[in-house]
């Protein structure tokens, strides 16, 4: 092809145009699928007043890897939308937490299944839906509920985003993605929810058509930019644990 493709040479180029105020979803769950390299590039790029959507703001464990907590520390974040805005053990503290407690960053705490479904809804053209989750809790206080077939449900809205940062195992040049094992987690949903999906890819980009159509996890329709992860030490590898071993 002589046309510009989806492949970018490096992380810096792939995030260069992200404006102040962007809404960005970050994939990953407890390591696998986390876009460490794109996040690192965004720390250098410096966009401000970001809204960051993710399972957690990160940083509960050492060594730190590039995470939303670091973007907060770097003064780049206005708001986070997460299933964890504090650590689950009272003795731990997330790097994010003191910024939140001082009112320097906003936070919206969302149950994990609701977070996933709101992203999926945004990617599916469903503006709102009802869920049984969080009914009767502090999170439902003052919010709209509805009785359906005798059970109470909470109204939840779609969560669209400007960008998704995700990490995949393999990609072809058309943007078709495969994830390995629990790396999949939020990746396909954030790709659906985003206007622009940027993917850091572990294996070299494959030629168009190299992935069996029946085994594509995310269609290239949802994918706009692909960046191969360089080997360490320049690129960050699979998980925190492997990094720790170095």
């Amino acid at each position, binding site marked *: 092809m002589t046309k510009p493709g989806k492949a970018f040479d490096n992380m810096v180029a792939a995030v260069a145009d992200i404006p102040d105020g962007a809404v960005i979803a970050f994939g990953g769950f407890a390591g696998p699928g986390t876009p460490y390299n794109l996040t690192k590039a965004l720390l250098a790029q410096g966009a401000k007043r970001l809204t960051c959507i993710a399972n*957690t703001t990160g940083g509960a464990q050492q060594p730190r890897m590039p995470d939303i907590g670091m973007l907060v520390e770097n003064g780049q974040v206005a708001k986070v939308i997460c299933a964890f*805005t*504090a650590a689950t053990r009272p003795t731990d503290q997330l790097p994010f*937490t003191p910024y939140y407690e001082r009112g320097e960053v906003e936070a919206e705490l969302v*149950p994990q299944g609701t977070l*996933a479904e709101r992203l999926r809804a945004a990617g599916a053209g469903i503006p709102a839906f009802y869920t049984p989750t969080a009914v*009767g809790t502090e999170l439902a206080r003052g919010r709209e509920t509805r009785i359906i077939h005798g059970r109470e449900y909470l109204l939840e809205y779609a969560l669209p985003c400007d960008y998704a940062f995700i990490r995949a195992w393999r990609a072809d040049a058309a943007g078709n993605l495969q994830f390995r*094992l629990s790396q999949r987690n939020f990746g396909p949903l954030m790709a659906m929810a985003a206007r622009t999906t940027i993917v850091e890819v572990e294996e070299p980009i494959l030629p168009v058509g190299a992935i069996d159509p029946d085994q594509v996890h995310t269609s290239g329709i949802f994918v706009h930019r692909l960046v191969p992860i360089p080997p360490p030490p320049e690129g960050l590898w*699979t998980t925190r*644990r492997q990094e720790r071993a170095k």
Partner: protein
Amino acid sequence: MSGWDRQQMADRLAREFQDGWIVNLGVGIPTLCSNTDIGDRDIIYHAENGVIGYGPVLPPGQEDLHLVNAGGQNVSLRPGAAIVHHADSFAIIRSGRIDVTVMGAYEVAANGDFANWRIGDAKGGGIGGAMDLAACARRVFIILEHTTRTGEPRLLRACNLPVTTRGVVTLVATNLGLFAPAGDGFAVRELAPGVSFETAQTATGAPLLPG
């Protein structure tokens, strides 16, 4: 003090899992259940992150770094495992297909309420998948230390902390034994070796009812 250690608490609850159940294990002590020998029972362990059919935690060096359970531990897969994304994983949860969810908690109340997402004076919280699971699983079991580090009871008449879900807990394993919320108190299903009824009652913030 005698009683059960963390793995024994997990083992005791895992004995309650019935053949054919789909079981979700939460962060902390509950994840130890997947290390328990379940004999010839078919149990499918489901994790929020879309791993269906995992097994014991793998020792260092044998991990697959692409595979973690809900607690971030590198686990093994059992034959017949399948991977789905987060929305499909919570579809399984919300549609009532989880036979039991096992979670940690800060507090459990005699009426079946429990609290595990926010400590009293914190501005934020850590909900994770707990509210989805507790609202939708067929059963909610809790594993927790019977008292706080300062000796305050965690099994109470009513929760002091913001609840995660109301009236759903049916079984609680602690280092002192196995207890079932029974409305006004907790029914004692079993006491750990060396633990007397009186010892357990003293450590509990609600009446214990002989099982």
